[in-house]
């Protein structure tokens, strides 16, 4: 707001200055139409601008002057000297008020009415006596009628203006080109200084020169700092136009949208602001066009009719995060999936294993656009892929999150500045190249043997910290003469791409690192796709900046679909620890989940394929008759039936679902539900309860049991607890065991013990004769000393399978 105000003041001042000459000319010749128009425009603009601010007095003054001048323009009134004087008095008063506003003071009350009265707006035709009166006061123009009081005002004004200038921060407006010239001038100066420093070093110590030179260096670095700050601009300049854009768009689309801007004081490189202008506009268009629903639809959905579009900027370190969130309908996952499948971006198998988050971010893939109909507003043939491309070009990124029915949020990450980046200079074949520091994960120098450097066909791999990392020779990439690699230690630069992919670049030498001022390259030089720009080193030599992302892409080192971008390596490790489940809604409308490991795939079949002749429903899929669970009691509505195909390794069954939601991680606590045998546990997913189906109970009930006589089944003793009886027992049974109460001394009976009971038994030396499986109550203990977390289905099953064949397993006490 303060910036807007400053802008208003600056603009008004500028107009006052520009129209100063016009005012004088108009005073000399009130009939001059052109002058009249200029002054009319001025008061009109002031009046318009006042509307944005709460300045009733300014508004009243400019409005009165505008009315009077409009009469003159329309020929209803002759601009006599009295009028001219009155208008000029008002203009002076406006200038005085603007000064007061800038100084943050209240302009003294009163006097406005007199000024307005002097205009005599109500009179369209002048009466004789008033004409007389006007003429009397008109000769010394500024002393008409209320002359003395005007004088007084003027004096006050001058005093005030002088004060204001001394107190407030003065700003001037400059053309951008001038700024650019100053900046490149300073860059040149720095280079000249570096050159001079080089020569001075060669010439040896010269105290008479060294002192002043040091001073020059210090001054120069100060100036450089100041210049860098000059480049920075508040993001407000970008935000300023958004309310209008939103207003126009929502009017055009018949929607009601309120925009909430936050963080306008974040400063950003001027060029960077230009770079993100289009992507930001595009995202806003999208949000209003596709995101926010029509008022009636919003009303029906129980939302406020006015949609909210929030745009917030935050600085964190040397990146800026911009969030654009709407409270609209959210992204339609199914639609995106269907589109992605149709365009061949993903395969059905990939789709099944894809989390909602990953799937949603497919909208940034080239050639993707969810809108069925191209609308005038957002369907411009420029998709979100271009938005992402543009952001990536400047080293930024974008991702999307969305909750159905609740809204969509786009998160943009952009570097603070475009043209000065931290970089690393490397050397290969006697030529230097720069690499943006942001990509550099690590620099490694070791012998080829230590890195396990191997050539696999044309490709090369190194092993570092236990990971095999693809490796590129920079010399090969650039087609330069490489020196013999085996002869000496390898110098590797490990580069981490925005997508999370890691690769190594073999160089010959690391030279230096520091701030690089990046300059654009000519199109012909950019064409090979290897370079992102050029920069000048301290010695004045130009160096090419490598386009790391593109080089990686050219060598197919970027993972498919870029899905990994959203899932950094650390997260992937976490995924292995937390159980994953497929979330769905069953025909009773209940939110359920089933462990993802059990889901073979998602099937869609016609409802007519269900065979209900037997007591249990069955369905033929891929030529196999499979049991079908989860059907509603009544007939199935709709033609298509969505099915989860579950498998326990030996047998398969189908579970009918109403809607498949997502694959999620079960990070919240699993609360056992003994009262429902079909439910293993309840847990929370995104704050809402989800029933985790007991797949083993499912298989026990619906699965075709293995054809074996009860006598041949191995026996198992369970701990004496409610949990073991209701939850563990079905699992153990479904694994082919017969639950018995006493093990005795039979070495073939498997005993399942909780970890603490086991410890006691071990201490007392009263270990069961047969194999023992230990259970832990806490997932974090799982795997320690062979204990298994009691909901770690796979390990439990594996342990049961191993114990089933004691001779094969060698009586292993797991």
């Amino acid at each position, binding site marked *: 707001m303060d910036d807007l105000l400053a802008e208003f003041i600056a603009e008004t001042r500028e107009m006052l200055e520009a129209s100063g000459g016009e005012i004088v000319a108009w005073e000399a010749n009130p009939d001059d139409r052109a002058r009249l128009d200029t002054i009319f425009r001025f008061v009109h603009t002031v009046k318009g601008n006042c509307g944005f601010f709460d300045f009733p007095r300014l508004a009243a003054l400019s409005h009165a002057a505008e009315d009077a001048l409009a009469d003159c323009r329309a020929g209803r009134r002759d601009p006599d000297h009295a009028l001219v004087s009155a208008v000029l008095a008002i203009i002076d008063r406006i200038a005085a008020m603007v000064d007061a506003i800038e100084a943050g003071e209240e302009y003294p009350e009163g006097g406005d009415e007199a000024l307005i009265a002097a205009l005599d707006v109500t009179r369209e035709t002048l009466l004789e006596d008033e004409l007389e009166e006007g003429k009397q006061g008109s000769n010394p123009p500024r002393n008409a009628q209320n002359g003395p009081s005007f004088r007084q005002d003027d004096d006050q004004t001058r005093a005030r203006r002088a004060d204001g200038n001394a107190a407030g921060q003065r700003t001037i407006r400059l053309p951008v080109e001038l700024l650019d010239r100053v900046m*490149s001038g300073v*860059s*040149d100066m*720095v*280079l000249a200084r570096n050159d001079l420093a080089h020569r001075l070093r060669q010439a040896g110590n010269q105290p008479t020169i060294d002192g002043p030179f040091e001073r020059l260096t210090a001054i120069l670095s100060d100036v450089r700092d100041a210049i860098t700050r000059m480049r920075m601009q508040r993001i407000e300049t970008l935000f300023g136009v958004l309310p209008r854009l939103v207003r126009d768009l929502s009017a055009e689309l018949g929607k009601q949208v309120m925009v909430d801007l936050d963080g306008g004081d974040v400063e950003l490189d001027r060029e960077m602001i230009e770079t993100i202008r289009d992507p930001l506009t595009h995202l806003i268009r999208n949000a209003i066009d596709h995101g926010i629903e029509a008022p009636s639809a919003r009303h029906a959905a129980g939302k406020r009719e006015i949609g909210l579009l929030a745009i917030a900027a935050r600085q964190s370190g040397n990146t800026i995060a911009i969030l654009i969130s709407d409270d609209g309908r959210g992204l339609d996952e199914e639609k995106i999936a269907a589109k992605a499948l149709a365009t061949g971006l993903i395969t059905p198998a990939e789709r099944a294993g894809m989390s909602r988050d990953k799937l949603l971010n497919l909208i940034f893939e080239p050639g993707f656009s969810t809108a069925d109909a191209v609308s005038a507003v957002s369907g411009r043939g420029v998709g979100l892929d271009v938005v992402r491309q543009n952001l990536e070009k400047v080293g930024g990124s974008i991702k999307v999150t969305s909750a159905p029915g609740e809204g969509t949020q786009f998160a943009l990450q952009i570097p603070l500045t475009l043209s000065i980046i931290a970089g690393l200079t490397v050397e290969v074949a006697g*030529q230097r190249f720069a690499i943006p520091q942001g990509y550099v994960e690590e620099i490694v120098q070791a012998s080829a043997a230590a890195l396990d450097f191997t050539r696999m066909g044309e490709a090369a791999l190194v092993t570092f910290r236990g990971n095999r990392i693809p490796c590129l020779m920079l010399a090969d990439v*650039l*087609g*330069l003469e490489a020196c013999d690699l085996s002869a000496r230690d390898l110098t590797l630069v490990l580069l981490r791409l925005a997508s999370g992919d890691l690769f190594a670049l073999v160089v010959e030498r690391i030279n230096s690192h520091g701030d690089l*001022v990046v*300059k*654009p*390259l*000519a*199109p*012909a*030089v950019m*064409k*090979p796709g*290897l*370079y992102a720009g*050029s920069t*000048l080193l301290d010695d*004045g*030599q*130009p*160096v*090419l900046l490598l386009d790391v992302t593109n080089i990686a892409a050219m060598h197919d080192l970027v993972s498919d679909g870029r899905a990994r971008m959203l899932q950094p390596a650390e997260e992937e490790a976490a995924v292995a620890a937390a159980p994953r489940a497929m979330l769905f809604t069953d025909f009773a409308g209940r939110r359920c989940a089933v462990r993802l490991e059990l889901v073979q795939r998602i099937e869609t079949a016609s409802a007519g394929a269900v065979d209900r002749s037997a007591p249990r429903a069955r369905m033929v899929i891929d030529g196999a008759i499979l049991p079908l669970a989860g059907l509603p009691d009544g007939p199935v509505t709709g033609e298509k039936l969505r099915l989860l195909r579950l498998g326990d390794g030996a047998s398969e069954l189908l579970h009918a679902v109403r809607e498949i939601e997502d694959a999620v991680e079960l990070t919240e606590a699993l609360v056992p539900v003994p009262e429902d045998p079909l439910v293993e546990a309840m847990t929370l997913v995104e704050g809402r309860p989800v029933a985790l189906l007991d797949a083993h109970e499912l298989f026990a009930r619906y699965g075709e049991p293995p054809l074996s006589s009860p006598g041949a089944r191995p026996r198992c003793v369970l701990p004496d607890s409610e949990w073991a009886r209701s939850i563990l027992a079905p699992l153990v049974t479904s694994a082919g065991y017969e639950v018995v109460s006493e093990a005795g001394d039979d070495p073939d009976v498997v005993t399942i013990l909780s970890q603490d009971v086991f410890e006691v038994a071990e201490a007392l030396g009263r270990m069961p004769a047969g194999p023992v499986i230990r259970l832990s109550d806490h997932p974090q203990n799982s795997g320690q000393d062979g204990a298994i977390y009691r909901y770690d289905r796979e390990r439990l099953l594996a342990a049961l399978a191993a114990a089933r064949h004691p001779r094969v397993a060698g009586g292993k006490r797991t």
Partner: protein
Amino acid sequence: MSELLVIIQIAGRRCALSAHDVKSVIEIGVVTPVPRTPDFIAGITALRSQTLTVIDCRRAIGLDAAQAPTDERAVVIAQGGHSYALLVDAIEDITTANGEPGQVPGGFGPDWSRIATGMIETASGPALLIDLPALIAGPDTVRGEIEAAA
């Protein structure tokens, strides 16, 4: 209006550039080669804090590489927001044009026709007026071959 022209020599031919396009003439310093670019791009060089793309004009026309030494000076031009330094045989003179560029019967030959606007009469004799964007674009066919070879 007689236009000011800078007369240069490329492969022994007299050529003319509009003086309006020529920013300056510089002593060419160290040129950093740019790997994997067409050979008519000699590299990049620094002019104060600016980066110039150095164009070898003979190769850009599609002629054989240097038989004659090039001038140590280069013509700096700006095209499409980028600055280029043109390596030429020699920079001769600044002169004025007499009349408009025209064609000659039989043409200039395919290589030259591609980069020439036409023949122009100058105060110091006729010269070939260079079409700068075409010159900087380089010989397409040659570039294609290089890329295929690479």
